[in-house]
């Protein structure tokens, strides 16, 4: 394929001229054979006023049982996506499907909204940004899968007052594989603080928790935080074994609807240490979240009436995967 190179000075001229942002990348061609595989969610409409959360089941391709190492994730979503998370399927409760099947839930109702269904499913990767998130793992680091392993891609779309989905929902995720096993395996941490309550008049209401990543020195290389529109600040810090914050915070976002996937950095966690995450919320007097809860916003996936305080952290070497509560 012919490559078009735009000189950097020309990009600067375009930027100064106030040209519109380039069209969002919402579709991806799959990797060529032998270089990876793609998970794809076919386009579907999101009706006005609806929140749709859909869980799609896939299988890692290849000779069953053989190791598959991934060095890069390309994740593309249409405008309006609230989040996209991929988990490894472990204990089955009330949410399941064969590869190629899906479970679609609407407005907080249905098994794809019931978080206990994936309580022990390790995180694979995630993004909350529209358009393309292209994440290349550091040299010598790879995410390990087994061919035949079942994955669940969860995608959440909102077409209501807080977020809009003007066109059809669509997700593509490319897993770019490695020719040989890397020196280090990627580990993940999915942490959620669900016993939260933000009520009318709350200003600067904050919730903090710590998750231990444990044995050995590990390096955090990517992270993002997730909350809804009452969220004003999402922060993450490294803590040592005694719980003391070490250095400055490594993640800081004020964006609730398009929080960045911070990557291409490296922060060391000392032996026995972990990650502290803190969510801060404001909700003025006069509004109402859940009328059945004194108008407070409590934990839940419905963007319009509930709140979240979830952290996604990626590190190496993988001591193990962590879900923290």
């Amino acid at each position, binding site marked *: 394929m012919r490559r078009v190179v735009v000189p950097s000075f020309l990009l600067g001229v375009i930027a100064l001229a106030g040209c519109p942002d380039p069209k969002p990348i919402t579709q991806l061609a799959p990797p060529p054979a032998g270089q990876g595989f793609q998970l794809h969610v076919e386009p579907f409409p999101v009706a006005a006023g609806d929140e749709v959360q859909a869980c799609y089941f896939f299988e890692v391709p290849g000779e069953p049982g053989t190791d598959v190492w991934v060095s890069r994730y390309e994740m593309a979503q249409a405008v309006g996506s609230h*989040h996209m*998370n991929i988990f490894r399927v*472990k*204990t089955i*409760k009330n949410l399941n499907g064969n590869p190629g099947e899906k479970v679609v839930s609407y407005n907080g109702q249905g098994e794809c909204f019931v*978080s*206990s*269904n*994936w*309580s*022990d*499913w*390790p995180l694979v990767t995630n993004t909350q940004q529209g358009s393309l998130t292209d994440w290349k793992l550091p040299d010598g680091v790879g995410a390990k899968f087994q061919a035949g392993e079942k994955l669940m891609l*969860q995608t*959440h779309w909102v077409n209501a007052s807080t977020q809009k989905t003007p066109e059809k929902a669509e997700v593509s995720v490319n897993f770019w594989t490695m020719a040989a096993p890397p020196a280090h395996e990627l580990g993940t941490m*999915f942490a*959620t*603080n*669900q*016993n*939260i*309550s933000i009520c009318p008049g709350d200003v*600067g*209401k*904050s*919730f*903090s*928790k*710590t*998750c*231990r990543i*444990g044995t050995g020195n590990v390096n955090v290389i990517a992270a993002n935080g*997730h909350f809804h529109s009452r969220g004003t600040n999402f922060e993450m810090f490294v*803590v040592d*074994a*005694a*719980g003391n914050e070490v250095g400055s915070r490594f993640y800081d976002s004020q964006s609730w609807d398009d929080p960045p996937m911070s990557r291409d950095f490296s922060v060391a966690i000392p032996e*026995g240490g972990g990650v*502290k995450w*803190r969510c801060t919320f404001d909700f003025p007097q006069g509004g109402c979240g859940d009328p059945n809860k004194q108008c407070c916003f*409590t*934990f839940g*996936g419905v963007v319009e009436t509930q709140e*979240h305080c*979830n952290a996604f952290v990626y590190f190496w070497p993988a001591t*193990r*995967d*962590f*879900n*923290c*509560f």
Partner: protein
Amino acid sequence: MRLASAVALLALVAGCPSPTRCPAGFIGEAGAAPEAQMVFTDGVSPTLRPATDGTVIPLEFPPQGGFVMYVGARVRNLDACVEIAGSLRDPTTGNEVGFDSRSTTLARAADGWGEPDARNLANVSNVNACPAYGPRDVHATPYDLVIRVSDGSGRVATVTQRVTPTCVQANAAQRAECICTCQANYTLGRCNGAADAGQ
């Protein structure tokens, strides 16, 4: 507007607490040292019970999954608007096993102390003792629990007790799930995933 700003500046220079910092006011005597008494609840009853050395504190299945202790402190000589932080520590190493901190407004008890409103468990520290990813069991094992209560003026009250987090579920299957999740070196999927998750 200018007058209000001048008054605020004067108050700041004079070292007065901001009149708008805590609408719920101050609990106790402004000049007295902050005091704290550790309390806990079982997550069902809003009754706060005292925690002292040797107290068995139940490990409960909370909305966020895993197993937590609902703990806090009764305090005085602080603003009513506070941050309550609970830290569970391994007494053999000093390492922190679980930590949860949250801002809340204390209610005034009849005896003049301030205490968290445990009718809403978001008002007390949900110390995340389990899953026990570390090398030491949590269930039925003594740990140091540190509760730190601080207000916006920098006043701090801290209380530490050696308590015993314990799975006390009446339902045998739930108790087994709790014990499994609170055994050392937990790995995802070990206990059939009864714990909850987010998103």
